[in-house]
């Protein structure tokens, strides 16, 4: 019975998820509530372009928010492993040192996937009508997983560096707020000066535009390249930061 340590850790993370309803609520139900709120309560107030159904406009953005909402739980979980000495316990054992972190990242990505599948189901019930073909859908899946992976490593680094679980939760807040200042809810060109430039150049906008293009069946390779570049960059920074904090902090 020699299961890889990463799988053992992943199994542990999933047990946690099942026993911690608050994190499931945040990761899976919050995005669905956001969807209801934006589409039913505010959708009519936003002008996103003639003839475009708001649910079709908002779904890609809320998909991205769903990824971000899951991150708070990951940061807190990683930090409590760190501050309670569980990471030290694994570090003095003869197991591959990164396994505990890989476990957290994979669990984070899988939580994202569950949240997104649930959200897309709800979106369809609310009248979402994408024109995406199979290849486009695969593109969406790839983009979401890549983002989840990149943001997951960054969150693990935040969780390792934070002093306490509370500060770790706070550290993930910017990641949750960033999508609001992107083209997720309303197009960037409708925003005021300053905010508009910020929305145009921040990483989430090209990622959302890529997903939006794919779901509309009209993918934009320019957006896609920018989006992938951002994700690879974030993943790299997150991974290196996490690795060095993991090695140094005891």
């Amino acid at each position, binding site marked *: 019975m020699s299961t890889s340590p990463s799988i053992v850790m992943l199994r*542990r993370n999933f047990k946690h998820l099942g026993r911690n309803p608050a994190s499931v609520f945040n990761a899976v139900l919050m995005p669905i509530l956001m969807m209801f709120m934006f589409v039913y309560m505010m959708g009519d107030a936003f002008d996103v372009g003639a003839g475009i159904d708001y649910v079709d406009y908002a779904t890609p953005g809320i998909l991205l928010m769903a990824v971000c909402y899951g991150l708070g739980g990951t940061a807190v979980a990683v930090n409590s492993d760190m501050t309670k*000495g569980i990471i030290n316990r694994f570090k003095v054992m003869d197991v591959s040192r990164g*396994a505990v972190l890989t476990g957290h990242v994979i669990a984070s990505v899988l939580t994202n996937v569950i949240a997104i599948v649930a959200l897309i189901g709800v979106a369809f019930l609310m009248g979402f009508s994408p024109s995406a073909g199979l290849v486009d859908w695969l593109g969406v899946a790839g983009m979401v997983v890549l983002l989840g992976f990149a943001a997951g490593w960054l969150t693990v680094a935040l969780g390792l560096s934070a002093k306490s679980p509370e500060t770790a939760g706070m550290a993930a807040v910017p990641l949750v707020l960033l999508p609001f200042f992107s083209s997720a809810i309303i197009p960037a060109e409708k925003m005021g000066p300053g905010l508009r430039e910020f929305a145009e150049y921040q990483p989430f906008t090209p990622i959302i535009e890529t997903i939006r293009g794919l779901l509309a069946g009209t993918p934009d390779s320019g957006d896609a390249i920018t989006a992938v570049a951002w994700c690879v960059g974030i993943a790299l920074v997150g991974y290196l930061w996490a690795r060095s904090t993991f090695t140094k902090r005891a």
Partner: protein
Amino acid sequence: MSGTVSAAWRGRVSPDAEAKPMNTPAIAVSGLQKTFGDKVVLAGIDLEVRAGTVFALLGPNGAGKTTTVNVLTTLMKADGGTVRVAGHDIATEAKAVRKSIGVTGQFAAVDELLTGRENLQLMVDLNRSVTNKGIVTELLERFELTESADKPASTYSGGMRRKLDLAMTLVGSPRIIFLDEPTTGLDPRSRRTMWSIIRDLVADGVTIFLTTQYLEEADQLADRIAVLDQGRLVAQGTADDLKRQIPGTHVRLRFTTAAELDSAAQILTDGTRDDESLTLRVPSDGGTKSLRAVLARLDEYALSAEEFSVQTPDLDDVFLALTGHNTEVVAK
């Protein structure tokens, strides 16, 4: 500092003696240094722990105990000196060191969302060398955790958590175990349980390196004790060696008048008087016989003390005697 001390103190002989060459210590530390920024935490430590014995590192908060454990267990890199654990260099053979050690940190590192059984199973799954399929059940029984085995660890008491933590450390059957303040924060009963668990481990031939703030704990468990003060070892030897350097157990008598104190000092000639507090300190082993003798002498001369107490030396006395300052200075 005492050089040659018999490991057979209290009649204990290392059961591991045949298995390992007598001259290979389980832990050998020489000139160990560690600095955080410009703060020197360990200023050159030398110590040796023989296989199958218990070594206690005694010191107040902030002395550098946890840092020592962290370096010896490969969690932190040393800034100077050499450390060999189980014959392996911690700097170049960290993996081999990790294979031979078990570590229980200062705070019970158990996964609170998992049950006791799941915590142990997690260790089994991560430990490829474990072949004993029944080890989880065995450990639960041995540590009297069977009843709570399927409850989440978050519901455990402090003592149960420590036991679970130690049980998790034992999954890989390590030959050298590090225990960082294993009883800090435990109630007296749980402390005694922990002590008896540690004694059982030693009986199995395991080498134990423990840190503690309690002189009594070091005295109860350790074959050798080293006293750590501000990153330096200020004394090293057996419990008896240390006790010889500090004021021993004594009886403290407090009187109401100076005249009474005078008379008492004349009949109890080996006492040390303190005129300011009107007290007389009389050396005693604390046993009923010697206490009765002191009381009988007082009765004989129709003297009565207002207060009578038996004092045993604690960490403060050790520090006062060895370093000239008490633990407060370091702790705050």
